[in-house]
Structures are given as C-alpha cells and as structure tokens.
C-alpha cells in the first residue's frame, strides 16, 4: 500500500462508527497495539552526516533495511544512533523516498553505484518514479551492454588453452583465432592469398588478350589460356574445400556451424565449380552455367573472415535493416508514381524514348538518384516540369534514412573500437593480476622465513621483518595451515622449475657437497620427494655448506622428510650454524643445490614437527599442528 494511505487509515477506521447501527453481528475486537504510541526521532549517521527522521517515516516500508529490524545490526549503543558506512549524498535520495514515497534517480551518479546503494538498503529499483524511470532504464541498459561486452571479451579466445584439450579443440581455436599459433597464422594468410588469387583470376579471365595465330577477333584471356585458368581455379577450390572440411571437423557444434553465415558463404563459393564439373557442356544448360560463373564472385565475401571492417559493414547493414527497408519501400512508391506520370506526359511525343512504364522506371531511378545519364530525356514541357519535381523529391527521399544508418554505423564502429581497446587493456590487467598473485606468494614465503627467524636473533629479525598488517599475518597463517594439511610447501615458479629439472636429472649439487648428495640421490630412485636416506646426506650437506656459505652467496636448502628418527645432535648443530649465518632479507640468488629457495635463510626446524611416533619428543613437538597434518619434519640445512 502506498505511504500516504497509512496516514488516512485512522480516519477510515473512525468513520466505521457509521456502520455500528446497521451491523448484523457484533464487531470483532480491535487489534491490540502494544508498541509505544509516541513517535520518536531516529538519528541516522551516514559516514558523519547526521540525518534525523521520525520512526514512523521509516516504518512505512517494512521490507527495506531501514524499515525493518535489520537496522538494529547497525545500531551503535554508545552514541545511540544508527551508523551506516555508506555514501551520504545518495542516502539523501533514499531518505527522500521514505518521506515522499517517490524514488528519484540523480542523473550525475553512476548507475552502478546507485544500484548498489539500492541493493544495500533493500529498495527495489522498480519503485523509481516515472520522472526518472526512463533515464534510469536507458543508463542501465547501456551499462548492461557494456558488461556483456566485458564478459564476452573475458571469456575470449586470448585466454591460454586448457592443457588437456583435444586436437579437435586446438584446431578449432587455431581457426577462430589465427594469432594463437604460427601454423594457424600461416594458414590464415595462405587462404587469404588464395581468395585474392581466385577473385583476380575471375576478373582477368574476361580481359581481351591478343588473339592466337589464325584468328582475327580479340579473345578474352579466359578462353586463350583456358587450361591455365582452369588449373588455377581447381587449386583454389581445392584449398577452399579443404579449409571448409577442416572447419567442419573441428567445429564444436557441427549443426550450428553449418547454419552460420560464413559457412553458407563458403559453400556458395565452392559449389559452382563442382556443379560445373558435373554438368555436361551442351548449349541448353549453358545459360545456367553462366549464372554459376557469377556466383564465383561470392568468394570475395570470404574476405570477411580476414577483415573486421567488412564484418562491421555487414553488421551495420543488418542492424539498419528496417531503415533500409523503409528507404526501399518509399523509393519504389516514388518510382512507380513518377514513372507513370512521365510516361503519360511523354506519350504523345514522336520518337520518345519513354516506350512503356517499365522503361520509364530507368529514367526515374536515374533522375531521383541525381545520376542523370541523359539517355532518356523529356521533351514536352509537362514532362520537364514533372522531371524536375522528380529529381528534387529524389534528393529528399534518399536523404531521410541516411542519418539513421550513419548513426548506427558509428555506434557499432565505436563499440568495436572499445572492444579492441579493452582487449589491449586486458593484457595489462592480466599481467597486473599475475604480479599481484606472485606478490602474495612472495609475501607468504617471506612470512615463512620470518617465522623461523622469530626466536632466533631478535635484533636482526627486527631489521628484517617487514611491517605486515594483521590481515596478512592471518592470511599467511591460513596458507601455512594448508601446507601442513597436505605436507607440501608453496614455492614460486622459479624454484618449481628448478626442482623439476633437478628431479628429472637427479641431484646435482654444487661445490663439495656433490658426493654426499649423490649418495643420497642414488638411494632415491623416485621423484623429488626426499626419503629417509637423504636426510643423512642433507646433514652432511648442511655441515659443509654452512662453512662455505658464510659471508658469500647464501644458499638455503630446505628438506622435508617424512617421519623418521633424526639424530638429535643434528638439530643442535643446525641451530648453532643457523645462528652464525648473516641474515639477508632480500632476494637471493640460489644455485642448483639439492633444494634451494630464494628467500632469506634459516628456517628453523620448530615448524612442523612430528607428533607421536617421532623419537625426539621434547625438541620436535609442534604445538601448532593442524588436525589433518601428517607426520613431517622440516629441517633447514645451510
């Protein structure tokens, strides 16, 4: 019910006293209204700007945020007001809606921002008053079209292929997007070249060439070099047929492909050749054969796959179909009228070229389009008068629908330009997103190192620990928990490629550690997941590299080892050596040692420690193992 009606309800109820004398039965009991009668002023604080309104005003629309108990979630007990962290300028319009019952759309606001505010306050956009509804709808439709283009460009073909695509899918992508692979690009240009060759051959075929010996008349080149042209035509048609069949094979939905325009053009381009092959060379059907030759010119439309401008033109014409239809219709009407008039005006003249009304059609068209060939000219005065009226009206009739077509073309052209611009921006955006993701990963790896540093050497750690927000700390803790769950660690791309190289080749280590690690490597025939035996190698590695790396390029090796018994002294030795290391907080270069992570060194072993079965109870107990952890031991060796 509208807002204003509520105010009149008490009046209507009071007027019901008039029914009392007439009532057949006793009146029902009135509803008891326990809520406090007195109206109170509510204070609404919208990002600092205080609004005040009666409670009743807000209660008018109980299915919105302000009218229901939902606003209690935003009540601030200390200041006794409702605090909303939203835009106060748009809140003005929202509050006016409660007061007047009409929602207005501020024209200078962004449509999406306004929509979001409405969604937040639980107001349905359909309530917008008539004065602003049209503008709102137009802007909304424009925005939706833009969003649709965006999503279209998003799921576009520049995205990298899923790794497990069948050859058929890859073929289709190569056809649809030639610049994804060099083969596709080559094929694209080859087909373009052959289309051009075919069209040019069609054209040159008719040019008169010097006649061969024994003839006088000039011969069209097509007949003189008939074999050559036939071979060229055959080659082109073969390529087109091959291309069409490939596209048909690769198309994800063959029915849909066969029904598309490009496919029809392809078929129309190659059919005449095959029909010509099949048809016998006799006089009766040669007329139809001539027609078929005409169809060969349709091959030029195959260029629309190669040229976007052609596609835009075609789309424009299609979208202006109604205007074009109107143009055609009005022209036809005018032609018929003027042709009739001219015919009867010139009928009497001797030797007049206006032999019939259809013959006058030609004159009318030529005059109305202001061509004026002059092959048919009126001689009588009446004819001349009507002729001039014809030419004047022709200019008008043709000029009318043209602006509509032009504006359509301009709109479509700009849309395409926007799409191109967006595709270019998309690449930048994707690159930025990738960088952001890498940044998160690096931050997380940094966090892991810093966690190890904590409790080590507080002075140096203070230098290194970057100022990280509480959010980042918690996020990193979450990622850490995931690592513990799966017993795998996050690394970045470089390390990963390193690891996978070393995994396949075996473990090559640098410097003096080769022997020890090779021993370890030989014991592990499978994968890069280290096994029990390598732990010993790692310890030796640790001891040796620690001495080597002091003060020089620092390598960091981190090993994950499944539950094992670990000689306790290793850990203490590790600890001792870890202390001696100079802390380096920046990125480090790493060598292809067993495992290196390009982050600051010294990840202490008290990270993930084995629960129950580990024979090193006291030292290696982890208080923070998550519920799903495996028994793992992570030892960093330096």
């Amino acid at each position, binding site marked *: 019910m509208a807002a204003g009606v509520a105010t009149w309800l008490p009046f209507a109820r009071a007027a019901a006293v008039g029914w009392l004398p007439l009532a057949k039965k006793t009146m029902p009991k009135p509803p008891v209204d326990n809520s406090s009668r007195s109206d109170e002023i509510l204070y609404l604080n919208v990002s600092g700007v205080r609004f005040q309104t009666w409670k009743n005003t807000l209660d008018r629309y109980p*299915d919105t945020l302000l009218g*229901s*108990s*939902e606003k*209690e*979630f*935003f*009540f601030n007990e200390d200041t006794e007001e409702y605090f909303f*962290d939203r835009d106060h300028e748009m809140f003005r319009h929202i509050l006016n809606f409660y007061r007047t019952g009409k929602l207005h759309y501020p024209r200078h606001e962004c449509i999406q921002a306004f929509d*979001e505010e409405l*969604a*937040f306050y*639980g107001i349905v*956009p*359909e309530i917008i008053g008539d004065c602003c509804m049209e503008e709102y709808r137009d802007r909304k*439709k424009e925005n939706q079209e833009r969003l649709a283009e965006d999503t279209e460009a998003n799921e576009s073909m520049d995205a990298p292929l899923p790794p497990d695509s069948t050859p058929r899918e890859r073929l289709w992508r190569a056809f649809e997007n030639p610049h994804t692979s060099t083969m596709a690009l080559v094929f694209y240009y080859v087909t373009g070249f052959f289309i051009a060759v075919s069209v040019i051959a069609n054209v040159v075929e008719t040019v008169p060439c010097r006649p061969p010996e024994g003839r006088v008349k000039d011969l069209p080149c097509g007949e003189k070099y008939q074999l050559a042209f036939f071979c060229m035509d055959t080659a082109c048609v073969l390529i087109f047929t091959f291309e069409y069949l490939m596209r048909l094979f690769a198309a994800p939905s063959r029915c*849909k492909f066969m*029904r*598309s*325009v490009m496919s*029809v053009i392809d078929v*129309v381009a190659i059919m005449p050749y095959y029909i010509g092959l099949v048809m016998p060379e006799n006089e009766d059907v040669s*007329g*139809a054969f*001539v*027609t078929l030759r*005409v169809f060969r010119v349709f091959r030029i439309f195959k260029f629309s796959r190669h040229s976007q401008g052609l596609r835009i033109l075609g*789309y424009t014409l*299609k979208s202006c179909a109604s205007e074009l239809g109107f143009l055609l219709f009005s022209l036809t009407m005018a032609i018929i009228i003027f042709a009739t008039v001219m015919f009867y005006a010139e009928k009497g003249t001797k030797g007049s070229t206006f032999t019939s009304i259809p013959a006058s059609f030609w004159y009318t068209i030529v005059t109305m389009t202001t061509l004026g060939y002059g092959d048919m000219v009126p001689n009588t005065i009446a004819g001349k008068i009507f002729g001039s009226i014809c030419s004047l009206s022709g200019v008008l009739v043709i000029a009318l629908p043209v602006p509509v077509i032009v504006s359509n073309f301009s709109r479509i052209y700009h849309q395409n330009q926007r799409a191109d611009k967006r595709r270019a921006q998309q690449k930048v955006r994707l690159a930025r997103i990738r960088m952001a*993701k890498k940044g*998160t*990963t690096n931050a997380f790896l940094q966090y892991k190192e810093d966690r190890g540093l904590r409790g080590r050497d507080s002075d140096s750690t203070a230098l290194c620990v970057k100022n990280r927000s509480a959010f980042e700390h*918690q996020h990193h803790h*979450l*990622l850490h*928990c*995931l*690592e513990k769950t*799966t017993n*795998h*660690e*996050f*690394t*970045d*791309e470089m*390390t*990963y490629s390193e*690891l*996978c190289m070393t995994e396949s080749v075996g473990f090559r280590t640098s410097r003096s550690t080769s022997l020890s690690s090779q021993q370890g490597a030989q014991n592990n025939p499978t*994968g*890069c997941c*280290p096994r029990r035996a390598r732990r010993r190698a790692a310890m030796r590695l640790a001891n040796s590299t620690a001495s080597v790396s002091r003060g020089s390029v620092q390598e960091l090796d981190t090993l994950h080892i499944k539950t094992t018994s670990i000689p306790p002294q290793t850990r203490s030795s590790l600890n001792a050596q870890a202390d001696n290391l100079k802390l380096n907080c920046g990125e480090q270069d790493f060598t292809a040692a067993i*495992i290196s992570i390009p982050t600051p060194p010294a990840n202490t072993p008290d990270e993930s420690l084995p*629960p*129950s079965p580990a024979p090193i109870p006291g030292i290696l107990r982890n*208080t*923070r*193992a*998550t*519920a799903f952890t495996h028994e793992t031991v992570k030892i960093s060796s330096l």
Partner: protein
Amino acid sequence: MSVRWETEGLQTVGIVCLVIMFLKLMHLLGLIDITETDDSSDSDLELSTVRHQPEGLDQLQAQTKFTRKELQSLYRGFKNECPSGLVDEETFKSIYSQFFPQGDATTYAHFLFNAFDMDRNGSIRFEDFVIGLSVLLRGSVTEKLNWAFNLYDINKDGYITKEEMLAIMKSIYDMMGRYTYPCVRDEAPSEHVDKFFQKMDRNRDGVVTIEEFIETCQKDENIMNSMQLFENVI
C-alpha cells in the same frame, strides 16, 4: 545475338533472385542462422534479485554464542559483500578463491558451501553463516568434529566413503597449485586417503561413521591440541 544475351542475362538475374529468396526462406525456417551476433533485445529490466532479511538480533544472539557487538560487526561485513543478504555458490567460490591465489579453490569451496548451506537451498543466508561460524569458533570439540564430519560426508548420509574422502582430498590438493615443494604427485591424495582410513576406520568396513570419527579424533592428541587453533579469529 543480343536477344540471346538478354535472355541469358535475365536468366542470371532470375536465378540470383531465386537463390537469395531460398536463403531467406531457410533463415525464416530456422535452418540457417543469418544473425551472427546476438542483438540485445529490448527486454525489460530483469526482476531485482531476491532479497533476504535476517532474523532479529536477539534471536541470533540466542541461537549462537556470539555477543551482540560481534554479531553486528559480522553482519556489517556480510552485508557489504552481499547486499542482497544471500550468498550464492558462484560468489562464494570467487570470494574463497581469492585466499588461495596459487591453486584452484573452486572444488573445495563447493564442498564448503554445501557444508554451510544447511537447508540445501543453494544460497547461504546470514543465519547459516553465523550459526556455522558459531559452531566452528565457539562450539565444543564434539560440535566441531561433527561439523568436520558433515563437511566430509558429501551426500550427507552419515557415512564417509573412500570416494567422498578422495574427492575432498583432491580438492584440498588442488588448492596448493602447481608450484609446490615437493611436487604433488598424482597418487598423493589417494595415499593420504588410505592413511586417513587406516586411522579412522576401526571395524574395517570401508566407511567411517560419526562415532568412529569422533572416537579416533578424540584419541589423537595432535588433533585435540589444535582444535583451539582458530578461537580468536573473530
């Protein structure tokens, strides 16, 4: 001669017209689709999204173990993300994926969504959200284990089978992404599942029931210790 050419010319024109009309007819019949791009028709504005109001603050206070202020702050955050008051699965997946940039969190987000969406209507309301959080953060150990069991039991039939566990495990490993050390092998999830079943399935009947689950978890010191892990999340 000219007559012959004229008739041939007329024939050509006639055949061209015929072909065009044939194409138009096919388009009309829907056999060929001449429209290449979809013209956005002038459809009415789509109906505004369904809106949901949460229960009153007092009721929620009674149902959960949060204080009034906590509920208020939770609601403010929730409302900011989803002004309509409902979270659908796609939004949930995109929000959850942002926390795991390296891997693919959509499958796990799907399972998580089903665990939160208690009435299985395809969207999470604020009440579901807050009740779930209350169990996870302020609930007793048994309640938390119950919730975890509910998460693993994909079809909510009261038994965790190996297939369900494998699906969950795979989705967790998916979240790690490609760049991990050590490289995630294809058998890693199933090995993990086997270990899990070895631990949990007491009577070796191939499924884990809620009692077996709770019993085993309560006996595991590690799990019990880490149950308090996320207490101060809010």
